[in-house]
């Protein structure tokens, strides 16, 4: 038994998906054209199990955002930070916006996805950068 903090759980499917955001990223598409994010065995919209991985559009548009002033304990990100939900065609991603202040962001602002490591948690962190 070690006193060290346990490693965060591996999340096969999610981890590979998040890592791929550094190179543009992908999403899961079913035979009926519904988008979702991995890990998936079945389309949550229609139940199709005919799933394929497709490239994300290079840029997405901010669908909504918030400047967060009170962060969870242990999260590591110094508030205020901006969390946004960004639409990329048939899927949306949630992440933290880099290199733009809250005043510079509006609904519709174009961004591209990327991934960082959250040093405090060891988890992958989805981020968006100006497109």
């Amino acid at each position: 038994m070690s006193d060290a903090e346990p490693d965060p759980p591996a999340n096969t499917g999610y981890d590979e998906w998040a890592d791929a955001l550094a190179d543009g990223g992908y999403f899961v598409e079913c035979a009926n054209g519904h988008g979702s994010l991995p890990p998936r065995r079945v389309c949550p919209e229609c139940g199709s199990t005919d799933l394929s991985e497709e490239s994300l559009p290079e840029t997405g548009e901010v669908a909504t955002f918030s400047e967060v002033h009170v962060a969870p304990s242990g999260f590591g990100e110094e508030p205020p930070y901006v969390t946004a939900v960004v639409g990329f065609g048939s899927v949306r991603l949630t992440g933290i916006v880099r290199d733009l202040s809250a005043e510079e962001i509006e609904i519709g602002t174009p961004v591209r996805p990327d991934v960082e490591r959250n040093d405090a948690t060891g988890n992958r962190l989805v981020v968006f950068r100006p497109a």
Partner: protein
Amino acid sequence: MTGVRVAGVGLTPFGEHAGRTGRDLFAEAALAALDDAGVAGDEVEHLNYGNFMGALAERQGHQAPIMTEAAGLRCAGTRYEEACASAGVAVREAVRAVRSGENDVMLAGGMERMTNLSTAEVTESLAVAADELFEVRAGVTFPGAYALMARAYFDEYGGDREDLAHVAAKNHANAVNNEYAQYQREITVEQALDSPPVASPLHLFDACPITDGASALVLVSEEYAEEHDLDASVAITGTGQGGDRAALQDRTDMARTPAAADAAAEAYGDAGVGSDQVDVAEVHDCFTIAEVMALEALDLFDPGEGVGAARRGDTTRDGDLPVNLSGGLKAKGHPVGATGGSQIAEMTRLLRGDHPNSDAVPDATVGLTHNAGGTVASAVVHVLEVAE
């Protein structure tokens, strides 16, 4: 199918109960409910108990046996967990158990102990209700999630922070004479607007407080109430539950809460009442914007009309449809696992005529309660009616 009556209600004061255990809080509410009902604890056939974060706040899982013991019951219990809708689900399942004929006497409610944690720890604990992979890791907090919805709503329908400030001021005004409320004081619209930002566009006074508290209801079959000559004039005539994708990003429209609309449609159909017959409502205003979206999901206001309801006076105590006469989660407080039971306790008191704010709705016969989990990925709606 037998009818279900609310035979008794019990609440602890909502607020900070420093040094008290969760089991003591629930025992207080449970004994008050049994006393209000005039039913002995050994008559209760099952406990349906709601709790969300007890494993984090008190390091106590497996709470149902702890709570049956604390309440002096002689039966088994089950813990229900659907985030902030935990007690709503517990009540709904109790209603179904009585209707099925399986049970005649159920105790249902919930408890949450929260103020022993720091604000950052509560923020972390509540965030567990969001999608861990796709939201929590991206820094989405509970206020942050509702802020994302608020901005989407403003963009789609209009409205502004001042509209929301009127919701906060209204609910604080309603809480002033509620002896169970955490904040029995008024605030002004200006104070709400000037409070510090939590997650833009939401500020501190858009948010419910961090609260300790417990709620309990004694639910009985109509036959049991009659045989035992119980004073149980209020019936639960409709129950409905809806679900949605856990993460906001996966919702078709982030400015709406279809899980609540589904729950309401089921509950209205179950009770055989229309939304136009509702006289008074208790809705899940964990944030001011949540009340707005609830009013629209419950078909009490058209899309885009809910945001101005408090400002216009439609939902104030002297309006056509008073909403959150208890003070709501905003001012009465929000011990998350207890809230769904508390709403039904308050509505029962309002309809019986023994609530301090019953004088605002002297002729009310139909009441609606709306309890939501997370960002309304779970929703439970109940219709209560004066039966005699």
